[in-house]
């Protein structure tokens, strides 16, 4: 048996299967040192940026908060009412506190998958540990923000989220950067454990910059009757973003759903897939993706459903909207059935804005550009995330700012 460090060392030059191969030496490993402080002490600029990715400064509207800037954890707190229901801390602290956590560390995502996972092991910069305790239904969302404040920084976080049996929670997580950060690399490893009868909805919003690279690496294991809902949204430019998270529906009746909303702008290169493996009876999976490409953006929208058990079922829906002749959308839906009784299906459609829709809205008094903006915004509507009404309205407001500016 190799240790994860040894495995990482052997993989440290291994290119990823997808996406541009990045030279890891081009980024800085010199963060700014941040001391822990209340969120209200952070500058207006940081708070505004965090707000745009769904992270709010008012602690009362969140059951727990985790805030990391560069390589330092600056804030973590749980509202009094949720003490003994949830745990939130840095993964470094959690690994010290719980010896058993090593059984969850690099157990879904492989440390030697590629040079980025290897980097996250060899140059690990915190990340959050979130645990919803058994049978706790947490009705107010938890939030985590991973922030970058230094230009050209490399930041590698490793997060662990455990939803214990019978628990339920909503997590909002936002990754973003300071307005004077233009380049850099964020690697985010996240391992999700959804135990029996637990339900976790994880909504992640990314806001990067035109010369910034990012390589999230996520995986989830869902036990009997567990439900994992993963929502992802990226509306700002990015130099390159490549990820292909996977959910293993391991228990009976386990369910997984991925919804992705991607807005490719400028010269963005976006390669986002979602993979669901159905390994037991009654497992259900769904992948929904919406990709809008404008300017010279290139978007690869992938989806892979793998049926390994009789009586499992999954569907993949991939829609793309092309707003420029210099942009490109490449939609790649894949179905792998390994047993006869697995029912897998997909639909994919890529096109431009439908003329009849524009005319219909113009006949209601919208100008042509208003009509087109409305259609594009509608196409990226977050109601596909299936969030609770309040949270949906709140995220709609925060991303409204982004889309308004983008369109």
């Amino acid at each position, binding site marked *: 048996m190799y240790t994860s460090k040894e495995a990482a060392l052997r993989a440290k030059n291994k290119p990823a299967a997808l996406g541009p191969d990045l030279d890891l030496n081009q980024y800085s490993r010199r963060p700014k040192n941040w001391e822990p402080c209340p969120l209200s002490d952070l500058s207006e600029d940081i708070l505004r940026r965090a707000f745009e990715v769904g992270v709010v400064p008012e602690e009362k509207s969140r059951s727990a908060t985790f805030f990391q800037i560069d390589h330092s954890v600056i804030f973590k707190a749980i509202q009094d009412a949720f003490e003994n229901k949830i745990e939130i801390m840095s993964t470094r602290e959690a690994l010290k506190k719980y010896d058993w956590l090593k059984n969850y560390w690099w157990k879904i995502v492989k440390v030697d998958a590629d040079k980025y996972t290897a980097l996250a092991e060899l140059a690990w910069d915190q990340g959050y540990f979130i645990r919803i305790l058994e049978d706790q239904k947490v009705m107010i969302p938890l939030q985590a923000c991973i922030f970058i404040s230094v230009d050209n920084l490399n930041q590698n976080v490793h997060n662990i989220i455990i939803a214990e049996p019978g628990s339920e929670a909503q997590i909002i997580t936002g990754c973003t950067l300071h307005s004077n950060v233009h380049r850099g690399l964020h690697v985010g490893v996240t391992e999700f454990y959804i135990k029996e009868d637990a339900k976790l909805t994880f909504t992640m919003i990314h806001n990067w910059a035109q010369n910034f690279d990012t390589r999230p690496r996520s995986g989830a294991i869902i036990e009997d009757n567990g439900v994992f809902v993963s929502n992802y949204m990226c509306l700002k430019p990015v130099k390159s973003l490549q990820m292909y998270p996977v959910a293993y529906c391991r228990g009976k009746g386990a369910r997984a759903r991925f919804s992705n909303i991607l807005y490719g702008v400028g010269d963005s290169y976006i390669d986002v897939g979602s993979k669901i493996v159905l390994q037991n009876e009654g497992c259900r999976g769904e992948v929904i993706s919406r990709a809008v490409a404008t300017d010279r953006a290139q978007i690869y929208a992938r989806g892979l459903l793998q049926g390994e058990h009789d009586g499992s079922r999954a569907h993949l829906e991939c*829609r793309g909207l092309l707003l420029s002749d210099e942009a490109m959308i490449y939609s790649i839906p894949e179905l792998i059935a390994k047993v006869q009784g697995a029912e897998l299906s997909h639909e994919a459609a890529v096109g431009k804005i*439908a*003329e*009849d*829709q524009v*005319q*219909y*809205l*113009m*006949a*209601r*008094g*919208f*100008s*042509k550009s208003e009509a087109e903006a*409305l*259609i594009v*915004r*509608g*196409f*990226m*509507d977050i*109601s596909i995330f299936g969030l609770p009404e309040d949270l949906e309205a709140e995220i709609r407001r925060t991303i409204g700012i982004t889309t308004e500016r983008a369109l």
Partner: protein
Amino acid sequence: MVRNILEIRNLSVEVSGKRILNNVNLQIPEGEVHVLFGPNGSGKSSLIMTLLGFPAYKVVTGKIIFKGKNITSLPTDERVKMGISVAFQNPPAIRGVKLGEILNHLIREESKINELLSKVKFPPSFLKRDINLGFSGGEVKKSEILQALAQNGDFIILDEPDSGVDVENLKVLGGAVNELLRDRSALIITHLGFILHYVNADMAHVLINGTIVCSGSPVKILGQILNEGYSWCMKCIQVKKQRCELKINQQL
């Protein structure tokens, strides 16, 4: 003298190079409700798309005068803002665009929107539905009338407001249309004329092969069409043509 709210003069229209309207002439005086009959494919909906200025409908000759202004080359949104309300026959579904968003664009006050909703018997939850996505036939018609009410124009265009609607919904729709048309002018396309039970129309026109071939009393014309079909109108064209030829021959 009553002024025409809409005047169509010698209008000929092509779609993808194919002639679909031929020398159409039509005047609708202010305050009058006119009905347009015609067999499938005769150009009724095309006339409406042309009135609204949809780009695929190229005006080859003629002009459209609305409230005394030549609107033939105006974009759609500017035309409707001059006071046109419209209910489409087959509106497109638009994913993620809510009925409520469209209504909010037309009406600011929420109380007014709720008032309109109750007129077509829609629950407020309908505002959050993606427009026309998964709507039943009746829901499409109600949503169109609702939007036309919200547009609050003084010239109303209704394209088949009664097709595919059950008796129960027809009553609701009839009531709403009746209110919509109060003290206003309108052009209504109807196939079977059910809506005419709820509306007092002043004049009817029959469109065949892109040309208005006959105009007159709505009740009389509808009666003839229901009894004899459009073959009666075709005969009428031939009779007129023969009379015309006879006249020319006599003059010669």
